[in-house]
Structures are given as structure tokens and as C-alpha cells.
């Protein structure tokens, strides 16, 4: 059993009280530039997923509490949650720095964009 805490309403529960929403921070390219979107970008949006062994960032929904979506950082080997944060937020900076592989690339590109 994994114990999830909703950062919105503060309720605590196991995985049956929440709904898993897959990888976090996926951007739909058609939202910003629907005209010039390529097949590859659409493929990446729909199917390509970060699948790290270790630190992962994902979406959860507080099914039996407030019903809101939120973000979580979790280790996919130990299943320990590292942080819960809001749906519009990026993870805490120290977790961004710990991220590896495609996640590290993603957070670097976000930092550059700012």
C-alpha cells in the first residue's frame, strides 16, 4: 500500500482513495501552436513517456476528498513519495536537481525558457 497526501485538502489515504494520472508536466503542443504541429510532436504528447527507474513526477487526483488534480514526486523503486505539489507548480528545486535522464533534460529546458 502506498499512502498519498492531497496537497489541496490535506486528506491522507491509500492508492484506492486516489486516481493515478500518469506522467506529470506533459504539454499539449496543439494548445500553443495548432497550425505547425508535427506528427512527431503529437506522438510525443500522446505516447512517449518518461519511464525512469527512480525519481518520477506524476499526476494524481484526490478521488474521495476534494476531487482536485495535483502533482507528486515519487521513487518508482521504493515507492516512497518525495513531495506533493500543486497542479500548476513545478517540483521543489532540490528534487529537480536530483532528477535524471529525460526528467533532468526537461527541468533544464524549463529553467532556460524562464
Amino acid at each position: 500500500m502506498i499512502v498519498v497526501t492531497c496537497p489541496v485538502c490535506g486528506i491522507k489515504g491509500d492508492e484506492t482513495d486516489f486516481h493515478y494520472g500518469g506522467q506529470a508536466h506533459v504539454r499539449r503542443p496543439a494548445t500553443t501552436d495548432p497550425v505547425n504541429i508535427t506528427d512527431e510532436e503529437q506522438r510525443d504528447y500522446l505516447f512517449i513517456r518518461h519511464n525512469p527507474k527512480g525519481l518520477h513526477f506524476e499526476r494524481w487526483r484526490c478521488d474521495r476528498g476534494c476531487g482536485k488534480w495535483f502533482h507528486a514526486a515519487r521513487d518508482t523503486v521504493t515507492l516512497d513519495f518525495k513531495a506533493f505539489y500543486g497542479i500548476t507548480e513545478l517540483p521543489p528545486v532540490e528534487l529537480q536537481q536530483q532528477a535524471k535522464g529525460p526528467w533532468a533534460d526537461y527541468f533544464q529546458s524549463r529553467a532556460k525558457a524562464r
Partner: protein
Amino acid sequence: MKSRYSVFSLARNAFSYHKDWERAWRSPSPKAEYDAVIVGAGGHGLATAYYLAKNHGMTNIAVVEKGWLGGGNTGRNTTIIRSNYLQDPSIAIYELSRSLYENLSQELNYNMMFSPRGLMMLCQTEHEFRAMKRTSHANRLAGLDCRMITPAEVKEIVPIVNDDPNCRYPILGAYYQPRGGTGRHDAVAWGYARGADAMGVDIIQNCEVTGIRREGDKVVGLDTTKGFIKTRKIGVVAAGHVSTIMDLAGVRMPIESMCLQALVSEPIKPLIDCVVMANTVHGYISQSDKGELVIGGGTDPYNNYSQRGSFTALEHTVTALVETFPVISRLRMLRQWGGIVDMTGDRSPILSKTDVQGLYVNCGWGTGGFKAIPGSGWVFADTMANDRPHPIAEPFSLKRFTEGRLIDESVAAAVAH
């Protein structure tokens, strides 16, 4: 040449108290260079190596494995063999596989205990009945031996099934594939390993891949914990860990790894001589030759590399089976374990070349890879040897995710994903 296993070799070795059996495969150190290297010594990887050597004469090849051969999902599944998928490309590859299983023990001179005891998929809701009927029509059009059976026939084949018409999920009928069944999963890996090794394939265990070296768009070799291995062809067949290997080559995959559990009961007398899948309630069951009930269910819904599942998923599976087979309600469970399955968006596998020349990938078998081992190895070996997709592998290319040509089995595969 290895000596053949037979009743005579068994008798001969009995005289030396079975202490002088030859090792089934060598434990070689890696050579500096191979014509091809397979990453992952599970069933699919070993079958690929076997058919590369046997069908394509490529014997200067190696299989590298992080742990021990057959220690991943090959040794963790519920050994079900069937081919009743909905889409034509799926039927083609799974039926090739099922038919190869029929003679595999003779071919490999290794008893993998293929037992075509029949496979039944219960229909417990009206819409499941219609979906299975559609599958059975698609299967019969493709030439598969299958039929829909009535609740009375279900009861005759599986007397322990709950036939109360007033229960929550009454049996309305079933899909029946009489040639489906089970096999000994470890023996499939061991048989392919022994066969490949006899033809000169090096199987290198305890050898983790730590890097894939590229020169431009070509692979030139891989770094491992046992040193650098030079090769122009790499076949990645790493199931749940495929993303971690492909990340090393800079190729992103449409895969998410999840944990699927199985469990076995204490051994009991013969109770059920058919594989029964109850997909509405999420559980499937068969009985091993030792008498244990082999039980499987659904995956945990979140990304997971832990190889142990949650009690939630376990309880869900057991609840479903107790509802369907009330007689097993007091049975104690002996062992439980998890395997890391590689799920694709359309729940169909990936057998493909990649944008990197010389890099091939065979993955995405998700919750149902065991049944596909011989066929997958056959077509993937052909794809690697000839550097073009085998006709049966072609629809399973990575390109389908760009082109939108999905092979949608996520609702059609008739299993609980």
C-alpha cells in the same frame, strides 16, 4: 555437440547418481566483438538468439543479461498460452507463436510441458458476451480453432464454477479456445538457452549494460559491467526495463513500466483442467501439474519498478476468483510475486527497427508476453538478420505511434489490463 536428453541418457546418468550431467549452457566471458548482441536473456531474448543462429546462421552473437537468465517476467508469469486477439496483426503473431509451441519440446529437446488443455474466457456481462462473440468471429475468420460455449458447457468443463444465475456476475457463456493452454515457463527460457548455446551463442549473465555507444546514427557497441563489447547490431529485449536501456541510446519509448502480480496456492488434488479467465472481475486461474492453483489478476495502476505488488491489487484478484469459484475460498496461498511489465498505449507489442542504425527493439508485450515467446523470437531474429521488418513484425513498428496506425488491443485483447 551436446548430448541429447532422452530416456537412455536418463538411465545412463542414473548409474552415476545424476552427478555427471553436462551443464546445459556455458558461462563464457564476453569476446571483444560480436556480429550481434541481444540485451536481455529472458524468453524473448533467448528465442531471438536461438532463431538468429538456427534460421539465419548468425552464431557469433551474444546475449547479455543483468541478472540471471529467465529471472524476469519469463519466470514470473502465469504460463498461459493462447492466441485469441481481435486484430489481424495480433492474431498472426500470437498464432504463429502458439503453433511453434506445439513442437517446441521436440525442437529444443527440452521438455517445456506444453499442455493444450483448453482456454476459456468467461462472459459475465451482456457487453462482455458480445465483445467475446465478436472476437470469436474475428478469430474464426482468421482460421483459429475456437467457439462460443453455453453456460451448461462451461459447467461441464469446469464443474467448480459458480453457476448461480442470481450472483453479481452470472456466467452468460464463454469463449473457448481448445488449443490454448499452459507451458512450463522456466523450461522455455532454459530450452532456448541450451539450444542457442549449443550453436555457439554466448550467454553472458550478471552483465549489466551501462551504455550504448553511437557513431552518428549507427551503433558501434555497448559498455557493460564486464567491459566494452563491439557490435554493429543490438537487439534490446529488456521488457520492463526497456526504457532505461533505450535512454542510454537516446531513443525515447512509448512505454510505461508497471507491476503485475501473480500468486500460487498450496497444492491440492486435480480441481480444474482448463485455463479460466474471468475478465470482468479481473482474475484468471489454472492448476499446475504440482497441484497449485496459479492465479493472476490486474496491474497496479502506477509506474513501478519494485517487483512486488500492492495488497489492493492482490485482494481484488482473490475476491474475483472466490466469487467465481466459491470452492477455493478457504485455500491458503503459498507464494506471491510481481513482475515489471512494459505497457504501450495501444497494449500491443513493439518489434521494430529504430532511427539509430543497428539498434532494434522488441518490447511492449505488457501483461501477456509469455505466450508470444517463440513467434516473437522468430520474427525479431528475421528482422535483425535482414535489417528489414519481417512481414508479421511490420505492423508492430515504432512508426505506428507517429502514423496513428495503432493496433488497438487495449479493450480488444479480452484480458484485464
